[in-house]
Structure formats: structure tokens, C-alpha cells
């Protein structure tokens, strides 16, 4: 009985595989034909280029129309560039097999290894869903609550034409000023966009067939506006950019590994200071409290708990698990009256609270960095006597 069932199962599995592969090849961007997959299983060289291309498309960020990640480059990158990019990206994601890194850069070999890599990507995470989510039409007005998706995209290594040669520090000051001004402009533009969005949502209240939404989004309103003119391309053209707002992808500093030493030094210095502060206090405390009564121990326990909670909250600021309550990914904006509690969806007030605490945390980090700089500069400046340093007011 068992053997028969096993044979049936295997038969079902064997039957399902070609269909799955066929579906996969249709779903993936630049999906190779099922024949390519079959050839790759036997490590045929002719299957390799298609798989390199597939991996490149899958690993690089896709804009909504599936264009290449770096529009600035114009035409799609060469095979060598694609191969290099795929290797680098897989390695940084932790791909375990070294055989991939040793494949030739002309993309002519290694189809079986590439098939393994694809399987690895599919097994690790919801790759297909992520691809679909990237290319889907955004029907609503979306606001990404978390910038991490944007940051997680590998920055396209565009060879930048830079000002060679040394610059004066005043050039840097000028660039910083320009940056500050840009941010101010951004904030005002953003405020205006919010006001307009609020109006559109108010004016179309009651129009949506989906009662939980209640009003139309900009995309939907535009769909109706342009419905007669045969201008739907504009609708889809404007949909996706609302959702994808990449923040800057900073270059990695060329001595990235040096950060480890820096952090180690800082942590050790901090540990020393803490020990130096805590030990004498503990000694002094023990000396004072030595003979106190049992009612004091209850108070002590309460203090310990309170401090424990505070420190746990502090730790949450940087540990991964802490922000789990924060939703991930884009949310669709819906304007509804304040009384609507108990329905699905997040409330803006809650999100604002979470964002404010993150803001406080980041401000603390920035202040701390600036303080370190101030101390360091004071130390360096103190080496020169005969000067008076007047700090700027209003700190």
C-alpha cells in the first residue's frame, strides 16, 4: 500500500514540475524558456547567457516598466558587467558556493551553477512575490513607511565624472549649504502635495466601490479623467513613482573594514569609562546601605525592575527585533474620520508616534557624533596656546 502511494506521489510530482517551470518562465522577468532550464540541468553551455541575464534582472532593482536599474547608462550593460554584478551581489547576499565566483566573465559557462543560484534565491525568500510587488500597478496613493527596501537596492555603480584634483574646503561648505536648501525645498513641496492629496481625497468621498477605502486615489481619479482621451499610458506612467522614493545610496567608504576597528575602540573606551564610574559608586553604596532593613529590599527590587525596563527600551532602539511592531512596506493612504476605530489599517497618529521616537533616536545619534567632534577639535586646538576660541551662540 505504501509503495503504491509513493509511486503515485512521485508521479504527481514529476507531472507538476514541468508546469511549475513553465509558469516560472512566464512569471520571471526576461524569463528563459523551459528548454533553457532543462539544458541548464545538464550544464549545457548554451543555456548560460540566458541565465546570467535572468539573474541580473532578478537581482537588480526593477522600475515598474521593467527597465534596467540604471537608466542613466542608456543601453543595457554588457555581458561582462552583468556577470560581475551578479557575482558581487550574490556574494554580498551570502551565497555559499565558491564555484560561482570562478565562472568565466564572458558568461559562456556554468548554467548548472546558475540554476543552483536561482534555486537558492527562490528558497531563501519570497522572490517571486517581491518581483511581482515591484512591478505591480499602484492603484492607491502609497506612502512607504520604511526606507529599507529603497536602501537595500544595490547602488548602480555609475562611473561618475568627478572634479579631479583638490578642492578647497569652501567648496564643501557650499555643497553642504546647497544640500540644506534642497531639503527645505523638498519639505515645502511635500507639504503642498499633502494638501492637494487631502483635497482630492475629500472631493471624491463616497465614489469608491470598495467601502473600506471610501474615496478615490490620485491614480484612480486620473484614470477617470483621462478615460475618454485614450491617454491611459499617463495613468500607469505616473502610478509607480509615487511608491518608489529611493533615499540616497551612499557610496561605501573605501576603508569600510576600518569601521570594525573604530567601533571596537569606541566600545572598549566606553566600557572602561562605565567601569570607572560604576565601581566606586557600588562600593560607596554598599558601605552606606550595609545594615538597612528588609523593607529596603522591596524598594531595591522595584528600582531594579524600573531600570531594567528603561535599559530594554534603550536597547530596542538599535536592535532588530525592536522595530518589529513597525509595519513594513508601502501603505495606501486613506482619508477617514477620526472616529473610525476598530477597522483594519494603521492610524496615522500611531505611526507619527513611532516616527517621532525614531526621530529622537537619530537626533541623539547626530548630537553625539557632533559632541565627539567638538571634543576632538577642542583637544587639537588646545595644543596651540595663545588663541581664544569663541563658540557660536545658540547651541
Amino acid at each position: 500500500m505504501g509503495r503504491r502511494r509513493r509511486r503515485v506521489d512521485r508521479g504527481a510530482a514529476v507531472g507538476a514540475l514541468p508546469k511549475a517551470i513553465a509558469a516560472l518562465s512566464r512569471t520571471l522577468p526576461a524569463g528563459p524558456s523551459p528548454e533553457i532550464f532543462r539544458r541548464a540541468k545538464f550544464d549545457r553551455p548554451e543555456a548560460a547567457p540566458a541565465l546570467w541575464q535572468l539573474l541580473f534582472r532578478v537581482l537588480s532593482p526593477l522600475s515598474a516598466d521593467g527597465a534596467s536599474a540604471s537608466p542613466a547608462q542608456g543601453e543595457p550593460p554588457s555581458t561582462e558587467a552583468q556577470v560581475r554584478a551578479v557575482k558581487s551581489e550574490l556574494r554580498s547576499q551570502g551565497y555559499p558556493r565558491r564555484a560561482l565566483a570562478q565562472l568565466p566573465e564572458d558568461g559562456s559557462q556554468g548554467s548548472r551553477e546558475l540554476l543552483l543560484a536561482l534555486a537558492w534565491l527562490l528558497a531563501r525568500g519570497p522572490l517571486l512575490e517581491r518581483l511581482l510587488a515591484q512591478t505591480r500597478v499602484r492603484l492607491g496613493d502609497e506612502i512607504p513607511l520604511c526606507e529599507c527596501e529603497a536602501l537595500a537596492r544595490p547602488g548602480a555603480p555609475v562611473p561618475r565624472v568627478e572634479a579631479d584634483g583638490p578642492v578647497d574646503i569652501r567648496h564643501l561648505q557650499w555643497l553642504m549649504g546647497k544640500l540644506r536648501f534642497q531639503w527645505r525645498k523638498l519639505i515645502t513641496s511635500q507639504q503642498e502635495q499633502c494638501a492637494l492629496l487631502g483635497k482630492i481625497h475629500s472631493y471624491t468621498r463616497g465614489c469608491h466601490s470598495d467601502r473600506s477605502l471610501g474615496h478615490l486615489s490620485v491614480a484612480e481619479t486620473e484614470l477617470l479623467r483621462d478615460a475618454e482621451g485614450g491617454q491611459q499610458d499617463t495613468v500607469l506612467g505616473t502610478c509607480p513613482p509615487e511608491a518608489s522614493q529611493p533615499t540616497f545610496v551612499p557610496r561605501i567608504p573605501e576603508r569600510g573594514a576600518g569601521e570594525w576597528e573604530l567601533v571596537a575602540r569606541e566600545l572598549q573606551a566606553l566600557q572602561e569609562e562605565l567601569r570607572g564610574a560604576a565601581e566606586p559608586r557600588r562600593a560607596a553604596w554598599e558601605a552606606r546601605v550595609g545594615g538597612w532593613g528588609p523593607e529596603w529590599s522591596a524598594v531595591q527590587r522595584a528600582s531594579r525592575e524600573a531600570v531594567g525596563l528603561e535599559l530594554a527600551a534603550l536597547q530596542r532602539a538599535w536592535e532588530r527585533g525592536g522595530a518589529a511592531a513597525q509595519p513594513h512596506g508601502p501603505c495606501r493612504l486613506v482619508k477617514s474620520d477620526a472616529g473610525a476605530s476598530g477597522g483594519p489599517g494603521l492610524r496615522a497618529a500611531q505611526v507619527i508616534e513611532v516616527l517621532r521616537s525614531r526621530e529622537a533616536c537619530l537626533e541623539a545619534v547626530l548630537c553625539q557624533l557632533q559632541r565627539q567632534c567638538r571634543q576632538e577639535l577642542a583637544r587639537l586646538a588646545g595644543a596651540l596656546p595663545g588663541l581664544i576660541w569663541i563658540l557660536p551662540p545658540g547651541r
Partner: protein
Amino acid sequence: MLPADCSRRLVAELRDALDACAERQRQLERSLRVSRRLLRTWEPAETPAPQPTPAPETSGEAPSPESTPSSQDLKELELLTQALEKAVRVRKGISKTGERHKALSLKSGSAATSATTASAPSRPSGQASCRVSETKPPRGIQQTVVPARGLPESRLLSVGDRTRMGRGSRATKPGPGPRDQQIPPSAALQAPEAFTLKEKGILLRLPMAYRKAASRNSRLWAQLSSAQTSDSMDAAATAKTQFLQKMQMTSGGPGSGLSAAAVEAEVGLLRTACLLLRRRMEEVLSADPADCMQEYRCLLTLEGLQAITEQCLHRLQELRAAVVGRQLGPWPVGRRPGASLPCGGGTDPLWSPQLLLYSSTQELQTLEALRLRLAMLDQQIHLEKVLMAELLPLVGTQGPHWLALCRAVHSLLCEGGERFLTVLRDEPAD
């Protein structure tokens, strides 16, 4: 003048930051253009201005004739729906390919015809107010396309009634009734009364085909996400983990499971942790305990901070061991994975988006302003770290114009470039 390589790196960083800002600004302006256009009067048959160089709105062009209006984007929706369906099939391993395709092709066929009729309700005001005076709309051809409809018509009627009754001064002439006014879109374009979202936005209705496609779309997303929790998924999950483990084994030795990117991200987090711990320590040390209780709490806090610092150091050593053991080689170039603060969900797929409810424009503005501020702070922190790494060593070595350099560096690093300090020479009074 700064040394050449230092200049190059710093200028590159600052330009990257400016580019990121500029990109955000571009996207914002695109959205602004779209929104402004929707809030203006909806002149028919305008050339839209979605391009970066917007052309002025031109009205009065001949409206494009009854080319299939909404089938274009319906096809797009349908393609995406098809892709979703395939994904569902890959999950379930069931083949309904045959009937699905048939159903879809039927749908796309009917979409074309239903589109013209379905978009008619989106112009109820135009029709209700269509004074058949100046330009008699050429109804001849179009009317044959329009079948008699039950429910949408009654909705149209009630909406039209509401329009007439609710808006006194704006009351349109009670025309012959909406039934006769079912002029398909292209003819309604010549309706003289303009449409503004403010006044008549409430009358808009989404086309039926769109609604059907959108609801099917969201149903499929829900199906996909619910399929995750079924039993077959557990079997798939174990198969996946086994496969991943096997891959790890064949690569020659058990790895730590960490990627170079993850290690780097965690080192960054530990740096942030160090800063925050130090800040708390300084707060505690500068506070003046008023009574025994506060003294005790200060002591406990310091000891707790010490324990956490040791944990962080330990974790740092672990990361170092992982890097060295796996010989990850040079750090990946051209990419920086982490922000200054982590975000919780890493593996959650981006399903059909959650709703975010806001109650007033002010609330939305606050929310967006905070988001921008967080992005700006993130950028500032990164720039601060980079500038510190490059400029502080320069101040350490005394060169020409050291004072000016020192003053400029102080302003950049300590005041965000906004304020300057003054240096005076301390001349002894002779």
C-alpha cells in the same frame, strides 16, 4: 586646499547626497503636477502634461474618436493578474491553465465593449447638464453601442437627482432624463459645462471593468498570502531549509549564515548602540541625585549600561570571527545596505498594501514631514561619519592655513555647516 583623494571622496559623497535629494524632488514635482491637474477644471481632450517639460493645457482639440478607451490599462491589469495567477499555480501545483486562459480571453474581449459603456457613468454631470443647445452631439453612431442598463442607470438617476436637489444654485436644467443622456464619452466631451473635482467629484464612478479587475487582483493577492499558511507550505518550507543547508555544506564547511552585507549592517548598528549608550551614560553622570533612591537608580543604570556594552563587544568579536573565518574578501563595493537604525521586518513580502488612515490634512503633513526628516537625519549622520573620517586627521596635522581649516572643519562637523566660531589671538597687554 584639501588633498586630492580626500577631496574626491568628499565631493563624491556630497554629490551623491544632492543627487538623492534631486531625485526625490523630481518625483515630488511629478506628483504635484498630476494632483494640480486633477484639481483644475477638467477640460476635455487636453494634451496631458506628464513629461518633465509640461506643455500648456490645450483645449479644443478634436477628441479622439471612439478608440477603445480604457482597454489599454485594463490589459495591463489583466497581464498582472495573469502573472499573479501563475504565481498561485506555482505554489499550488494545480493546473487550471486551460480554463483560466479561456476565461481571460473572454474577459479581454468583453472589456473593449464594456469599457465605452462603463465609463459613461463617470460623466453623469456632463450628461445631466448637457444643454443640447450649442453643439448638438453626434449621437447617431454611439447610441447603438449603448445597451439598456438597469442598475447603473438607477444609480445615475439617483446621483443626478442628488445633484439637482442638493445644489440649488448650481441646479442643472432637468433635462430629458439620464437615460437619453447616455452619450458615450467622446460625445459628452462637447458638453459646455466644465467639470471640477471640487464640485462634482463626488459623482465619479469607477468603470465596472476596472472594479472587477481590481477586486480580482486583490482576491488573488489574498489567496497568495493565505496559501502561505496551509499545510503544503510547511512541507515546502522544510524542503527549502534542507536545500539551503545542503548548499551550505557543499560549499566547504559550515558558514555562519551571515553575508558580508549583514555583518556590515550589524557593525553599523553596534556603532549606533555605542553612541546611544554613551549618551545615556553622560546623562546619568551629569545628573545630580536628589535622594537615596535616585542614587541607587543611577548606580543600577551604570551597571546595566556596562553589561550591555560588554554584550555589544562580545557580538562584535563574533562578527569579526565570522568574517575572518569565511574569508569574505573585500567588502562589497558600491553599496551600503543599512540605515543608522534597523527596521524590523526583513522577510515579510510586500503584499497588497495595508491601509493607513489619516483624519486631516495636518496629520498627513505631519506624517510626511517626519518621514522626510528621518531621511534627512539619516543622510546627515552618514555625511557626518564620512566627514569625520576624512577631515579630523587633516586637522591633526598642522599645515598652512591651519586656523582657517580648523574653523571650517568645526563648522562643518559640529554645527552642520550653519554656524561659525570666532578665533581671537590672545595678545598679552604690553
